[in-house]
């Protein structure tokens, strides 16, 4: 009796990885999913902290994909290891701060380590030649296989027929004829295959699955590094860049202002780590001050906080300023007018 072969599939939560895994499951291979959490994944419920999104059912699409496929999913925290990928990408950044090629090499390398530790035979990804401008090109796909160390243990079922044979194909663990020859940016073959498999409710993230492909997020990250004078971050930084309005009046401080109740609730958890403030005389948002503000800076922050509260048109607004140790004082400020906030302050 032939040995049951086992593959680990990189599951992002998108359609391509779902289809790639399903293609191999259909060939009788035991497949389990793996999903790497870098801290920058759009996947998850980052937006659920915004109250307005609460009516929309949220789901983690990687978990949902695994459930559709009937496979286990291993979610791996790679936040710390990923820092070197982001800070020192050998192959550089894409349009924003997205190190897509280095990222894919890193993830396939981690998957290679995982299959060695767990006695699996090969790795599946949902990559398609020509699908992405940086990591899914004919010239970069071999780079991923080579530099990750996966080499011919890396099988891309959706475009395998356009690529050299891999070990699973040569050994007959999978039938190359039943793999696919997708290429380019068209989604039609994927949609047809999804229909064939009976998938009709799948995630189609418009901007990819990573915050680093987002200009606004990337701008905030660059601002963070610039203000600190060095490229470094921790998980709280990554989280806070996703939340609120970020305004930097001066290089030594910025103000993060909650845009709604859900964000305010999330920011409450950081009150012992940042000077924070909110309007005392009117309803208004919670704001955190990041950096080393002077007393005069705090008044600017208070004016900004008042600007986004219900007292924005009032002549004076009382703002409570809380130090990290909880001590409070109330200051009275005139809310900043919209046209008094220079555009370059808005990160």
């Amino acid at each position, binding site marked *: 009796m032939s040995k049951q072969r086992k593959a680990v599939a990189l599951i992002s939560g998108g359609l391509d990885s779902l289809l790639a895994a399903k293609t191999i499951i259909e060939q009788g291979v035991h497949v389990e999913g793996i*999903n790497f*959490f870098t801290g920058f*994944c759009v*996947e*998850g*419920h*980052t937006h*659920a*902290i915004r109250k307005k999104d*609460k009516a929309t*059912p*949220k*789901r*983690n699409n*990687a*978990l*949902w994909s*695994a*459930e559709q496929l*009937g*496979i*286990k*999913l*291993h*979610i*791996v*925290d790679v936040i710390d290891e990923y820092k070197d990928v982001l800070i020192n990408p050998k192959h550089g950044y894409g349009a924003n701060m997205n190190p897509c090629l280095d990222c894919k090499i890193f993830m396939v390398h981690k998957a290679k380590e995982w299959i060695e530790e767990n006695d699996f035979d090969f790795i599946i990804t949902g990559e398609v030649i020509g699908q992405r401008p940086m990591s899914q090109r004919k010239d970069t796909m071999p780079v991923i296989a080579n530099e990750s160390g996966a080499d011919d243990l890396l099988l891309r079922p959706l475009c395998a027929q356009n690529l050299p044979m891999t070990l699973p194909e040569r050994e007959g663990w999978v039938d190359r004829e039943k793999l696919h020859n997708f290429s380019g940016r068209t989604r039609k073959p994927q949609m047809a295959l999804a229909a064939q498999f009976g998938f009709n409710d799948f995630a189609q993230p418009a901007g990819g699955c990573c915050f680093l492909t987002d200009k606004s997020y990337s701008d905030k990250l660059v601002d963070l590094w610039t203000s600190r004078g060095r490229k470094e971050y921790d998980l709280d930084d990554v*989280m806070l860049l996703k939340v609120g309005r970020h305004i930097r009046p001066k290089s030594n401080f910025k103000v993060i202002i909650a845009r709604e109740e859900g964000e305010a*609730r*999330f920011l409450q*958890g950081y009150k012992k780590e940042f000077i924070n403030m909110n309007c005392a005389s009117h309803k208004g948002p919670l704001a955190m001050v990041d950096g080393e503000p002077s007393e005069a800076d705090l008044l600017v922050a208070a004016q900004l906080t008042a600007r986004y509260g219900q007292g924005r048109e009032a002549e004076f607004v009382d703002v409570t300023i809380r130090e990290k140790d909880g001590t409070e004082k109330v200051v009275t400020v005139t809310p900043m007018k919209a046209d008094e906030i220079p555009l370059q302050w808005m990160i």
Partner: protein
Amino acid sequence: MSKEVLNAKRLLCPLPVIRTQDKVKTMATGDILQVVCTDPGVMQDIPAWCRINGHKVIETVSDDMEYIIVLEVG
């Protein structure tokens, strides 16, 4: 059978799921884990994770501030 509590407050998904996954690895079948979170997304994600990995959700409790999931390790 042991009962343990995991504090996953302030973490956004999927971190509460990852912390749950890592904690469950150290527990035995039949043990009970209570996960306390602040991200409402856990109400979808932890039950989904339990379903695909063979664990049983015994109870979910939520108010506007905290979301608590009690599961039995499978």
